[in-house]
């Protein structure tokens, strides 16, 4: 019964990949206007760039399916990148990596306590964390940008710049984590609980699920994926700026919404999010290649989120009527 419900929801999510169809058409048009978009070297580059948003989108998928949202990830990305780069030169790359994951875990736990256990409004609480973590980034760095002194001599470079059999390591990390988290979400009882809590919290509580704990755990996952994204971006850039992550939360949300995950909770999929991330990345790269300014992407994100959610809402309403 539980299984049926989940399979049904996965099927629904798959149907709702229809959300992405209009954007595939737009992508086709963009590709005609900017032929370099689909050159093999460019494809590799776009996929590598998409892996940062991609890794964060995996965590966000869990949070959205549990019926919540995490707006703090952009600032969190800035803060963790800053800490990583700072510790890399002061202590060493090993400590820096462990610290990054530790900070991601810690912030995830804080978010989890605020939203899961204290039951604060997820949107506003994580909006508050967005501001708080941005401030923490400025305080930590004293407003300065940091760079790694000797980027050529550290194994840390492998995370963002390395290649294995000609495939960029960030892509491998993204796909590896997608497989791992996809398994966790779609094949384990934990994953089914996340769906259950997002689908109907009251029912799930009556069924004996500890909703606060499950909600909190999705924030921990989101914190950890953000830490991984910070490692990729830090290693790629070999530096950290106070505004590294500004606006990332919107891109991530747009990608996940494009992938058919519902904001209402209870439905969505990791595969959908991966597809959403890739489509969004190509779309944005295409717009850049056409020579359009970067802030046009913000308008694109706006339109994408609204259309994706509108389609979602319309399909839900039809279900109610039938």
């Amino acid at each position, binding site marked *: 019964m539980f299984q049926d419900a989940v399979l049904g929801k996965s099927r629904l999510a798959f149907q709702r990949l229809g959300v992405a169809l209009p954007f595939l058409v737009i992508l086709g048009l963009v590709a005609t206007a900017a032929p370099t978009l689909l050159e093999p070297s460019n494809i590799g580059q776009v996929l590598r760039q998409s892996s940062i948003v991609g890794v964060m989108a995996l965590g966000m998928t869990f949070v959205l399916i549990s019926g919540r949202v995490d707006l703090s990830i952009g600032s969190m990305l800035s803060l963790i990148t800053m800490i990583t780069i700072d510790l890399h030169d002061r202590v060493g790359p090993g400590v820096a990596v462990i610290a990054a994951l530790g900070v991601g875990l810690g912030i995830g736990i804080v978010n989890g306590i*605020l939203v899961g256990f204290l039951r604060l409004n997820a949107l*506003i609480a994580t909006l508050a964390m967005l*501001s708080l973590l941005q*401030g923490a980034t400025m305080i930590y760095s004293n407003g300065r940008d940091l760079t790694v002194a000797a980027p050529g001599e550290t194994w840390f470079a492998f995370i963002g710049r390395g290649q294995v059999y000609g495939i960029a390591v960030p892509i491998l990390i993204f796909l590896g984590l997608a497989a791992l988290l996809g398994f966790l979400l779609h094949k384990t009882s934990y994953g089914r609980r996340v769906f259950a809590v997002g689908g109907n919290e009251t029912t799930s509580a009556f069924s004996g699920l500890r909703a606060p704990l499950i909600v909190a755990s999705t924030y921990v996952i989101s914190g950890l994926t953000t830490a991984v994204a910070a490692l990729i971006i830090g290693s790629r850039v070999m530096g950290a700026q106070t505004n590294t992550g500004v606006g990332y939360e919107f891109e991530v949300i747009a990608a996940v919404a494009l992938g058919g995950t519902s904001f209402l909770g209870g439905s969505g999929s990791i595969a959908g999010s991966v597809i959403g991330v890739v489509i969004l990345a190509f779309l944005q790269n295409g717009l850049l290649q056409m020579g359009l300014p970067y*802030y046009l992407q*913000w308008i694109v994100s*706006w339109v994408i989120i*609204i259309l994706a959610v509108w389609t979602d*809402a319309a399909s839900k*309403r039809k279900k109610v009527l039938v």
Partner: protein
Amino acid sequence: MSAVSEPIDGLGRDSTNWAATALTAIGLWARRYPVWIFLAAALVFFSLKSPHFLSVFNLSNILLQAAFFGFLSIGLTLLIISRNIDLTVGSVAGLAACLAVGLQPSLGLWLPIAIGLGAGLAIGLLNGFLVERAGIDSFIVTLAGMIGIKGLAFAFAGEESISASIDLFNELGALRIGRIHAIALLFLALLAIGHYVLKHTKYGRETYAIGGNRTAAVNAGVRVSRHVIIGFAISGLLAAFCGIAMAANMGAAMPAFGLGYEGWAIAAVVLGGTKLSGGSGRIVNTLGGVLLLASLRNGLNMIHVPAYYVLVTIGGALILALFFDTQFSRKPRQG
């Protein structure tokens, strides 16, 4: 509530009861509207820490800073009571400021201001339409709009700051009546109107009805969709007003104007005791929240706390406000 305290003797009775009643009243009031206590505490703290804090000059400055995001708080109070939210307000302020200043060389003074206000109104209507007619949750609609409208502002103005080219615009922005900024007085006037609307008009009563129980409001014949769309339009208009007032006061506009203001405005509303779950709230207490946050920002500055900490303060204040929100929205204990 059933047990009335028994007087011990004739002399003690009156004073005990009077003191107890007063204490209970103050306690109840403080529990319901703790924001005024916080405000008083903040004012006392900062005036002890800095001799310049309580000067008329500084207080009128606080009021001006309060007015800027206070405009947004007025609209947000209406929307939050009707159980909606508008996160686009900060971006709308930036866009309206850029339009009002950027179009001055070609269109003069008043037309660009009208266009800026019109843009805010149009975005408010669009938000309302998407929430009510398309049936998307207001949080998602306005979250997406927050970044998209910022994109529009950048697309219009580029990344540079634009200076106002008409002197009258700057003079209006710097206008003071007595020692108080005209913008601050305007904010107080709009606040009073908002209070009147909520408390004494049909629109106000319907706002509470929709936020309290939407289905019941529909069944009672309230035109809910129209009502909410008007609410978003008011919020958009006030946001545009905030941006233009800021531009006039500073004599320039930037797309980044209003960045993060939605956080300040929402924090003020929630600190003022308006429930995010809808159906209750008072605009007078929103004023308390606005003044508290403006005093905090100004006071921290006066005692030389670095500007970065302001971001942490707003975040902390929001979380604290939310915490109070959940604490006090629990059902009152039976007694």
